[in-house]
C-alpha cells in the first residue's frame, strides 16, 4: 500500500534521513521507534510531503507521491497527527475538526462530526470551547479525531503519548487499538516502548536517520539488546 524506498531527506544542508526503506500493507499497525533526533518526525514529514525527500521515492497505491504537495497527499487519504498535538489553539474544537473536512468535499460534515464526538465524547462536550483551554490529553484526542475524519487510509501518528499522564496514555492506547479494528493503516512514531510494543504488530527502530532494526513484536521482545542499545531502555 505504501512503500518508502531509499529516502534521503535534508533540512537545508543537514542530512537527516539516510536511505530509509519501509513497507506498509493495508491494515498494518506499525511503529517506528527511536530517540530524540533519530529522524522519526522527519520521516513522518517526508511521507506527508512537508519536507520532501531529496532522493528516493515514497509510493502509495503504486503511485509516486514523493513530490506531491501535502494537501494532495492528504486528499489521497494519508493523515498526519502531528507531534506536540499540533492543533489550532485559537480555534474551537469543532472548528479544528471542520478544518479537516474543508478539503474533503465528498464527506458529509455533520455525520462525520457526530462520529468523532461519539468516539470522543469529551470533545462533544467541549465542541464550542477554544482549544487553548483543553488539557494535553484532550488535545491529543482532538488531533486524532481530526485525523480520522472522512476517508482516512493511513494514519501517521507522531509521538502521541509524549508528555501525557499515565492514565491518559492508557486511554490513548485503547483508542489506537479501537482504530486498529477499523481497517485503517496506522504508522506510529513512539519513544514509549511499552506503548509501541503493545499496540503495534511490527516495528522499525530508527537511529541517526537509518533503520537499525525491523521485526515483529515477538522478535523485538526477544532482542532486548537492540532496544537497550538504540533506545536506551531496558524494557
Amino acid at each position, binding site marked *: 500500500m505504501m512503500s518508502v524506498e531509499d529516502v534521503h531527506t535534508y533540512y537545508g544542508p543537514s542530512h537527516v534521513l539516510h536511505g530509509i526503506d519501509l513497507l506498509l500493507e493495508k491494515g498494518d499497525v506499525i511503529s517506528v521507534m527511536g530517540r530524540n533526533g533519530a529522524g522519526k518526525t522527519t520521516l513522518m514529514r517526508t511521507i506527508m510531503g512537508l519536507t520532501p525527500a531529496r532522493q528516493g521515492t515514497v509510493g502509495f497505491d503504486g503511485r509516486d507521491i514523493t513530490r506531491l504537495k501535502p494537501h494532495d497527499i492528504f486528499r489521497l487519504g494519508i493523515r498526519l497527527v502531528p507531534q506536540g498535538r499540533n492543533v489550532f489553539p485559537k480555534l474551537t474544537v469543532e472548528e479544528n475538526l471542520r*478544518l479537516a473536512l*474543508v*478539503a474533503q468535499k465528498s464527506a458529509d460534515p455533520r455525520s462525520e462530526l457526530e462520529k468523532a464526538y461519539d468516539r470522543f465524547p469529551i470533545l462533544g462536550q467541549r465542541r464550542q470551547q477554544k482549544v487553548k483551554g483543553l488539557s494535553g490529553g484532550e488535545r491529543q484526542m482532538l488531533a486524532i479525531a481530526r485525523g480520522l475524519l472522512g476517508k482516512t487510509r493511513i494514519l501517521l501518528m507522531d509521538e502521541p503519548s509524549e508528555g501525557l499522564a499515565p492514565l491518559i496514555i492508557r486511554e490513548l492506547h485503547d483508542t489506537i487499538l479501537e482504530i486498529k479494528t477499523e481497517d485503517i493503516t496506522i504508522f506510529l512514531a513512539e519513544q514509549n516502548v511499552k506503548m509501541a510494543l503493545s499496540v503495534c504488530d511490527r516495528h522499525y527502530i530508527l537511529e541517526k536517520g537509518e533503520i537499525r532494526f525491523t521485526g515483529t513484536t515477538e522478535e523485538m521482545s526477544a532482542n532486548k539488546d537492540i532496544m537497550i542499545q538504540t533506545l536506551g531502555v531496558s524494557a
Partner: protein
Amino acid sequence: MTVLNGLTMGMVLVLVAGGLSIIFGMLDVLNFAHGSLYMLGGYLGYTLSIATGSFWLALLLAPVGVAMVGFFIEFFTLRPLYGRPPLHHLLLTFGISLIAQNAVKFIWGNDIYSVETPESLTGIVEFLGIAYPTYRLFILLFSIGIAILMWLLITKTRYGIVVRAGTEDIETLEAHGIDTRKVFTGVFILGSALAAIAGAAVAPMRTVYPQMGIDIIIDAFVVVIIGGLGSIRGTVIGALILGQAIQMGAVFLTGFADAAIYIVMAGILLFKPSGLVAESN
C-alpha cells in the same frame, strides 16, 4: 459629535487596515502596496461611476477590478518571496506602490477627481441634537456592515476557519488537505478587494488623487501595529483608538494635530512592545 467624527474615521481605518491585517496574519507580508490598492479602488470607483452612471454599481465593480490587480501582484511578485524576511516584502511592495502610483497617472492623469455623492445620501441628517452629513453616517454604517460581514466570514464560514488557522500554523493547515498557495492568493485578493471597497466608498467624502494611497498607508500600518500584528480584533481596536486619537489631536493639539497618531503609537508600543492584542506563544 466629536466622538462620532472619531468613530467614522476609525471605521474607515478598519476598512483600510482590515485587509492589511488579514494579509499580514496569513501571509506574513507587510503590504506597502495596500495603499495603492485603496487608491486604485478610488480611481476605478470614479471611472465606473461615470461610465455606469451609478455609484452603487461602481462600489460593487471597483473591488472586483482591484481584486484582479491583487491577483497579479500576488501571483507574479509575492509568490517567489514567501518565507523571506518581512523587510523584503515591505520593499517589494514599496516598489509596486511606486509603479502603481505612476501607472495611475498614465491612465487618469494627475488631476484631482471627486465622485458625486449619490443623490439619496446628500444633505444632512439630524438626530439626538446632532446634525451630521448623511453620507458620513452612511459610511459609518457601511463600514460597520462590512466589518460585520467580514466578522461573519471569518468566524462562521469554513473559509474563515481556514484563514484563522492559517494565521496560526500554515504547515499543519497544508497537511490537512488545504492548498495554502490558493488560500494565500485568495486572502490577498480579499484584502485587495477590501482596500478597494474602502477607496471607492470613501471617494465621495474625500477626493481621488494620486497621493491618496501614500497618505493612508502609514495610518493603516499604525493601526495594524498598535493592534498587534495579524489580530483582527486588535485591528478593530487599534483603528477605533486611532480614529479618536486623530479627532482629539485635531481638537487639542493645535498646530500639532498630525503628531497624534505617532504619540499614540509610541505610547502603546512602550507599554505593550508587541501591540495591544499580542500573540502569546
